[in-house]
């Protein structure tokens, strides 16, 4: 009867990061304690004679304990300890961390999730996985809110009315009988592609059981050309794996590999080549040819804006220059109107870099471009260095188009829709809505009762990845584990559970669905079997669950020969039009939105409210176009970025975009740096039916999208829709730095000639030293920690991971579109984006939108000024300095005069204008007349270590003071109060922890060994608005670019601030150490890497 615990044994190699009592876990005393089920008396209880009194007492106690945690904990079968009997390592008030993975269409992201009393409250990257090393991204960070989304589907629905699980099982049983007799004829499955090995295994079993059944995947934003090209070049199942960190020269053809198409490793790889320790540090170089201004374009040393449908010409020219073999046949296109030197010099640079060169291509580009890029990379000799070929074998599936053909031919009677939302996002030409109606029975598993559910006979609630067992192919190909941290909050199912039921996998006594890890374990056993070294499967499984992935399971690098047969001549389709682009022949580029992706995160308020890094648009999508295009179309006058109404709100007229007879009414945004005659349409908005957050937000670009041209289409026309106006909620209205020394940058060659340029750019360089009668008390660097931070502007790619990590960590509410429009967003960290002008853009000075600007990004949060302007003005001492240099907020003391916010030169203070945590966002103005309180599940997502602020108080970045205090307390306990300070860099704040580029570094300035101290000693280190003598603890490392001096226009790259400082005062040379009235010159020799 005695329960035997099967704790995963400690391995000698890996450190057990996530046990909060890790330091004691190996002591004999602890092990002994661990092996006892009950702390005292209970184990002895069974052996000895039992008195009735003792029996009742212990049973009573156990029952009482059992009642405490049942509601929020899943009772696992054998291997994790149910919280109903508090596990030994559970310390009340402390978090437990569990490794898991977040499934994505490009592969899972390895995660470590913090759980507090059975509630997952924070998602972090898995530090033991090489892909993550503890880093994560915006989607992973915000997935926590999806878990607690009260609008998620929470019931079985039959034909629009509530039903239950039993009835569904009965119906399914009948269906299964009919399939059994017909070999599954008429059965079709349409699924999202979660890259789950278990799903693949069950799919194969399903195909074996019902040979006539069909399986189809549909991922609207997942391009197919990259895989098709890889398979054409290297055989079936081939995948391309990039090693960006090995690349010294990178050319991107419309690939947002640092933004929307990024993986954690591509960002890390890229920034590893940009660690500018000093002027001699090697730097990689990035050329970008792209359409819309993406994060990758923002990081570029040389950016060329081109309509997406013209990039194929660059690929062709480049392939020719580089001498690539086995090229596809390119269509005849009008010649490019660009400086031929651009391609010429870029090609030379790539050739010079040889095997450490890399050309990447975006998902939306035509197949020819993908093939050409493979050929170019092969010709450069990059294979084996900057990119590899691996293989991922998967069972066969049919395309969505094939499935549609079958449905049209009445070959499908029963359709299973696993995830996805085809009614909303299927290509418009397929007319999926009527197709789905024509299928006899449709069973749909989904997160929301959405458009697809409405047209399905059955809707089943889908479980979140934090609620169920599963597995995933991680982004670099290894086998990742998905383990639940909480019982399904709304009784949801995963797709593999449903498949298990379909395949009659025994679910265990009294159960309908397999709710344990059996299905995943089975897959694991088979997979692990491939590793001859693993004999102890049980132990290996435990390690797998504990680590979150199977070590060394990434697919091997292949050496298959590059062989594109000359016959591969893909149809260009509508993607590339031979006719020149113009205002009557516009191209439309469909992209996955940077926030709601393909629409799956539409109900996630965190993602809705985080500003897009380039447009700073929240709660919306819009057609992005250039000022020239908008001007020619007659929809825009061309002076300001957008119209501003008297109430300070950005708006645009609504335009109608028509392609092939389909049209869409959508507002537009003029974006600097956007190519002419190209319209970028982010997908994922305009849902007709979803949760309350996403309902009616934005415009559905899927209405224009066809199966033949899903990413890029030409031949679009635009007319202005009469008298319709759309308001935007944009968090940054002004796009120019106005020549101020805010983001300081220079090319590396200039830096080499002017090592002190960073300081010379600032006002403080020519203002007299601040003198004060008042002696500010010095900070004690011996006795106390002194916290500080640096943000590296060279490596920040603007991925928003920090913003969302901060939101999750610090219980920051969302405020809704209306409040963002009023300028009341409440993020503690924001990413400022400035378009930096250069001499190419004389328009800049005239307030006209620059057509071809550079972009600089700057994360800004509380600077924790030692001489803080906010502190002196607070009349009630609610914001003060502590002895560790933190500018702390006492929410209890704050009465909300907002004087501090006014006097903060960095404008980082945020005010609770309403009770955002208590009131519904659409009824803020109703005050006490509106409903009060929030959904229970939303409360569950809050970090218990951070106060949830009420209305009327000011808040701002605290440098994650709760993390600091926890670390200090832990260390104090561990060292029995013998040590005063925590070890060097043993603490990370939330934004730093999430940052995949590692641009944010936090640490102890009193520790000479700390990373932050070393970074602050760099020449590039500067303080924002230093002349105000605020003495900020946060400093920036200036941005350094690495232009190729032979490129056209190279002398201006990264020079905008330097040049504008020289010219700003009519010949007065602001930049010390430069001379001449003309733009500053510096040695123009190209720098080697």
């Amino acid at each position, binding site marked *: 009867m005695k329960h035997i615990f099967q704790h995963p044994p400690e391995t000698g190699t890996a450190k057990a990061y996530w046990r909060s009592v890790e330091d004691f876990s190996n002591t004999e005393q602890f092990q002994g304690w661990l092996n006892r089920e009950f702390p005292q008396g209970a184990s002895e209880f069974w052996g000895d004679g039992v008195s009735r009194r003792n029996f009742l007492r212990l049973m009573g106690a156990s029952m009482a304990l059992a009642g405490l945690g049942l509601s929020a904990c899943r009772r696992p079968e054998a291997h994790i300890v149910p919280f109903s009997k508090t596990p030994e390592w559970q310390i009340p008030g402390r978090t437990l961390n569990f490794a898991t993975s977040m499934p994505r269409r490009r592969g899972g992201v390895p995660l470590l999730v913090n759980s507090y009393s059975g509630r997952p409250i924070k998602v972090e990257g898995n530090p033991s996985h090489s892909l993550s090393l503890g880093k994560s991204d915006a989607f992973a960070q915000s997935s926590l809110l999806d878990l607690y989304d009260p609008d998620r589907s929470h019931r079985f629905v039959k034909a629009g009315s509530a039903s239950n699980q039993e009835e569904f099982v009965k119906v399914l049983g009948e269906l299964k009988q009919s399939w059994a007799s017909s070999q599954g004829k008429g059965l079709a499955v349409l699924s999202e592609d979660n890259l789950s090995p278990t799903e693949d295994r069950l799919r194969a079993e399903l195909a074996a059981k019902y040979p006539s059944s069909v399986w189809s995947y549909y991922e609207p934003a997942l391009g197919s050309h990259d895989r098709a090209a890889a398979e054409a070049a290297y055989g079936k199942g081939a995948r391309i794996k990039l090693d960006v960190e090995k690349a010294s020269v990178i050319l991107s053809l419309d690939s947002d590999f640092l933004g929307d198409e990024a993986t954690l490793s591509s960002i890390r790889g890229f920034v590893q080549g940009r660690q500018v320790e000093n002027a001699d540090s090697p730097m990689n170089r990035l050329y970008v040819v792209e359409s819309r201004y993406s994060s990758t374009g923002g990081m570029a040393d040389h950016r060329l804006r081109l309509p997406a449908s013209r990039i194929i010409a660059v690929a062709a020219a480049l392939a020719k220059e580089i001498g690539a073999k086995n090229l596809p046949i390119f269509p005849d296109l009008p010649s490019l109107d660009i400086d031929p030197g651009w391609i010429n010099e870029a090609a030379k640079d790539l050739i010079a870099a040889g095997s450490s060169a890399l050309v990447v291509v975006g998902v939306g580009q035509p197949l020819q471009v993908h093939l050409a890029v493979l050929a170019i990379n092969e010709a450069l000799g990059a294979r084996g260095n900057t990119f590899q070929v691996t293989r991922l074998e998967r069972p066969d599936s049919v395309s969505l188009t094939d499935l549609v053909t079958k449905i049209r031919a009445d070959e499908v009677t029963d359709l299973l829709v696993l995830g996805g939302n085809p009614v909303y996002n299927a290509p418009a030409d397929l007319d999926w809505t009527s197709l789905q109606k024509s299928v006899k029975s449709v069973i749909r598993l989904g997160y929301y009762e959405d458009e697809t559910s409405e047209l399905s006979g059955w809707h089943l609630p889908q479980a979140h990845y934090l609620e169920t067992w599963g597995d995933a192919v991680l982004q670099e190909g290894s086998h990742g584990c998905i383990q639940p941290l909480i019982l399904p909050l709304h009784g949801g199912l995963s797709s593999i559970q449903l498949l298990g039921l379909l395949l009659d996998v025994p679910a265990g006594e009294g159960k309908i669905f397999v709710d344990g890890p059996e299905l995943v374990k089975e897959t694991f056993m088979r997979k692990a079997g491939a590793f001859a070294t693993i004999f102890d499967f049980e132990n290996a499984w435990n390690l797998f669950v504990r680590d979150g992935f199977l070590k060394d399971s990434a697919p091997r690098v292949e050496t298959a020969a590059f062989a594109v047969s000359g016959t591969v001549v893909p149809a260009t389709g509508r993607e590339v039009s031979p006719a020149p682009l113009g205002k009557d022949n516009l191209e439309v580029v469909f992209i996955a939105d940077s926030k709601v992706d393909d629409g799956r995160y539409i109900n996630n308020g965190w993602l809705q409210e985080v500003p897009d890094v380039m447009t700073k648009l929240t709660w919306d999508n819009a057609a992005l176009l250039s000022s020239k295009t908008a001007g020619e179309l007659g929809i825009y006058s061309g002076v300001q970025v957008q119209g501003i109404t*008297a*109430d*300070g709100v950005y708006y645009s007229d609504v335009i109608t975009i028509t392609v092939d007879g389909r049209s869409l009414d959508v507002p537009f945004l003029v974006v600097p740096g956007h190519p002419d005659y190209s319209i970028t349409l982010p997908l994922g908005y305009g849902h007709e039916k979803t949760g309350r957050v996403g309902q009616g937000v934005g415009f559905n670009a899927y209405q224009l999208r066809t199966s033949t041209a899903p990413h890029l289409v030409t031949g679009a026309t635009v007319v202005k829709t009469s008298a319709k106006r759309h308001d935007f909620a944009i968090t*940054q*209205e*002004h*796009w120019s730095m*106005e*020549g*101020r020394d805010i983001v300081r940058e220079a090319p590396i060659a200039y830096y080499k000639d002017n090592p002190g340029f960073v300081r010379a750019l600032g*006002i403080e360089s020519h203002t007299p030293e601040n003198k004060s009668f008042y002696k500010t008390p010095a900070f004690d660097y011996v006795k106390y920690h002194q916290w500080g931070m640096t943000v590296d502007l060279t490596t920040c790619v603007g991925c928003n991971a920090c913003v969302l990590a901060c939101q999750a960590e610090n219980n920051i509410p969302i405020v809704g579109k209306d*409040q963002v429009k*009023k*300028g*009341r*967003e409440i993020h503690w960290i924001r990413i*400022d*984006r*400035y378009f930096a002008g250069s001499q190419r853009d004389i328009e800049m000075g005239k307030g006209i939108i620059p057509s071809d600007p550079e972009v600089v990004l*700057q994360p*800004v949060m509380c600077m924790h000024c030692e001489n803080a*302007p906010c*502190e*002196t*003005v*607070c*009349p*009630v*001492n609610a914001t003060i300095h502590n002895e560790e240099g933190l500018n702390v907020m006492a929410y209890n*003391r*704050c*009465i*909300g*005069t*907002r*004087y501090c*916010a*006014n*006097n903060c*030169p*960095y*404008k980082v203070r*945020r*005010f*609770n*204008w*309403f009770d955002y945590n208590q009131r519904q966002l659409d009824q*803020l*103005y*109703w*005050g*006490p007349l509106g409903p009060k309180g929030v959904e229970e599940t939303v409360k569950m997502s809050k970090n218990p270590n951070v106060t949830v602020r*009420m*209305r*009327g*108080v000011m808040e701002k970045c605290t440098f994650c003071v709760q993390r600091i205090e926890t670390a200090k307390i832990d260390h104090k306990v561990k060292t029995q109060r013998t040590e005063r300070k925590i070890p060097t860099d043993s603490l990370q704040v939330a934004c730093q922890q999430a940052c995949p580029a590692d641009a944010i570094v936090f640490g102890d300035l009193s520790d000479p060994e700390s990373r932050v101290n070393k970074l602050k000693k760099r020449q590039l280190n500067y303080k924002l*608005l230093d002349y*105000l003598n*605020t003495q900020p603890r946060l400093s920036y490392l200036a941005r350094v670019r690495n232009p190729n001096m032979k490129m056209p226009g190279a002398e201006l790259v990264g020079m905008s601030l330097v040049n504008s400082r020289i010219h*700003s005062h009519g010949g007065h040379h602001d930049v010390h150490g430069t001379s001449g009235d003309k733009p500053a010159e510096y040695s123009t020799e190209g720098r080697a890497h």
Partner: protein
Amino acid sequence: MSEQASSYFGPAKGNILERRPLVSNNRSMGWVTSHIAGMLESKTPVWWWVAVVLSAVVATLVPFELIYLVSTGVGIWGSNQPVSWAWDITNFVFWIGIGHAGTLISAILFLTRQKWRTSINRAAEAMTIFAVICAGIFPAFHVGRVWMAWYLAPIPNANAIWPNFKSPLLWDVFAVSTYFTVSLIFWYIGLVPDLATIRDRATGKFRKFVYGLFALGWRGANRQWRHYEKAYLILAGISTPLVLSVHSIVSFDFATSVIPGWHTTIFPPYFVAGAIFGGFAMVLTLMIPVRAIFGLHDMITRKHIDNMAKIIVLTGSIVGYAYLIELFIAWYSGNPNEWWAFLHNRVLPSAPYAWAYWMMMFCNVIAPQLFWFKWCRTNIIAVWIIVQFPNVGMWFERFVIICTSLHRDFLPSSWGMFVPSINDILLFVGTFGLFLFLFLLFLRFLPAITIFEVKAVLPEADPHYRDPHAEGAKH
């Protein structure tokens, strides 16, 4: 009587220019008493009822808006990030500024022996008190958590946390509350002899009792007069620095900050001048109709109005000078942020709030220059119309300082716009209702002109009046 004679109106008669009497038409002491007391003893006029009901209705906006504000949140206003203060503090400074003229007239003009003050000081002081009441509403209620506003008081609470004595906002609390208290006492002390007059004239028992209660047993005895005059002098002495300090301290809210457009050393004198400017404009705005309605032409003579118009043109020019110096220093300092705040936030036509800046410039600097022309000072209708410009302009001055400086400061990423919400507007309108309501009550229940002081400037009050020996002494 002064030996130096001058003429205010009309050609001089004879060789010696007579000083124009402060009370015209040779009114007797009895006439003064009965005329002023008559304002509150006569039958309540219909216009008063109409006005008081109207203003009371408008004044109810104040409690309505405050209940909404406190129950729902400061978000009902248009303030945002970066403009965290907008109409709330604009209105506060505006009303506080208006509250300046009263005490200035009472105290400073008293100390400088400006006898023409006597017929306007009472009403001006009342105006001060009502304006400070209206002003106080804004800082008290603009905070996010009004129920915690007692943290501003220097009470060591359970946590032994004191207010932050470095914060100008705390200085404000002390300055404004001190100013209000002293002004109230000063006003009340000045009222005592007149309250006794009303008491003595009262016919009803209740009336006699109430006025008697507040008259504090005043009998007009010599000892009482001696004590009174000493107390009044002392209070005038205390009030005088307060007139200068309160608006200086209000200006510190801005001057001590780091925000370009706020961070200006010129603010204290500039604010004080502006406050006197705006205060006198409001005194004229109120007194000209009161004078007409109650027939006070003999006591509030054209000379009074002329004097006040001159003060307006003086202070208006000081304010205009301050505007220009501010602009010059912004350029001369070489601080690009400072210069930007003036040039691009205010002055240039492309500045988002240029209209407000130029409105301020016109109303405060240009329009009062009309008072250089005598016709403008003597035509009562013209005076009343011209003083509306400073009333409007002084509100815009505060709006320009607060809003245009905040909306675009150091980091262009955080620039924004401010637009008032309907609640901003209604609360402001409500305070006008409250102000007028209180002023109407004052007119009806208290002597609006200081009876005994006006009597003291009559020729009869001169001990040598009609003294044959004195006739020769005049020359």
